[in-house]
């Protein structure tokens, strides 16, 4: 098989499309050889990123604007790169504090777990913002045997 693959999905930004998005991403992840454990992690990370777009990105837009969500997957010999793009209002990712889970649970908080989950589930997560133009979150998962020492985060 050729070494590099590209997949893209564009879909209306609505919660009832999350199922289709998960099916798409799990199919591709399984095609490129991840085990069911990693497929589950990629599925959840992708759902969280897309749920954020649906809940937050287009909050200000009127009903007539096109509210789309783009997912792109690129794979090469060493990694699986998932990019979720919206064209909404954007936000400052540095301003989002990651939860301390002990406090979180002790105080019975609600919400605010999406980005934390994405970072826990994937090897790399970074945001690029151009509010109103395009806002992207890029998430990388390395193939088990190709994980570079400097990107390993001692998880699992």
């Amino acid at each position, binding site marked *: 098989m050729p070494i590099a693959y590209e997949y893209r999905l564009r879909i209306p930004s609505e*919660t009832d499309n999350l199922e289709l998005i998960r099916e798409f991403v799990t199919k591709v992840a399984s095609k490129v050889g991840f085990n069911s454990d990693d497929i589950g992690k990629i599925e959840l990370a992708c759902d969280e990123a897309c749920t954020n777009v649906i809940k937050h990105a287009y909050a200000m837009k009127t009903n007539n604007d096109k509210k789309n969500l783009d997912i792109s997957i690129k794979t090469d010999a060493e990694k699986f790169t998932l990019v979720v793009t919206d064209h909404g209002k954007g936000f400052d990712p540095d301003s989002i504090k990651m939860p301390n889970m002990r406090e979180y*649970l002790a105080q019975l908080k609600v919400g605010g*777990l999406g980005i934390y989950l994405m970072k826990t589930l994937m090897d790399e997560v970074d945001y690029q913002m151009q509010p109103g133009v395009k806002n992207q979150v890029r998430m990388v998962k390395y193939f088990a045997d190709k994980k570079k020492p400097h990107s390993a985060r001692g998880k699992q």
Partner: protein
Amino acid sequence: MDAFSIDRVNKNDCSILYLNGFLDAHTAPDLENELEKLIAEERFRIVVNFKNLTYISSAGLGVFMGYIETIRDHGGDIKMCSMSPKIFRVFDLLGFPTLYDIVQEEDRAIELFFKPEQK
């Protein structure tokens, strides 16, 4: 589409919710409605059976966090049982087992309301 559905069975003063399908941002409101109904009926002893739940995202986890305080304030609790490894992993990843009793057998989850000391 049977994306998500809930079956409820009342056993004495305990209510068991069987979740079927997937629990994500689209279907989480259905579970919220069901928990609100239970609270309105003052049924605070709740067992959630995850046997037929195939997927959960943080939107689903958030539903439990949103009602647990009210339910405990009324002397009740949410006990959880029969999670597949895939579902349990998500709860575990976030440390939820420190906050909720999660057991394998439904009978055991019900018992926890009556013999909590054996926990």
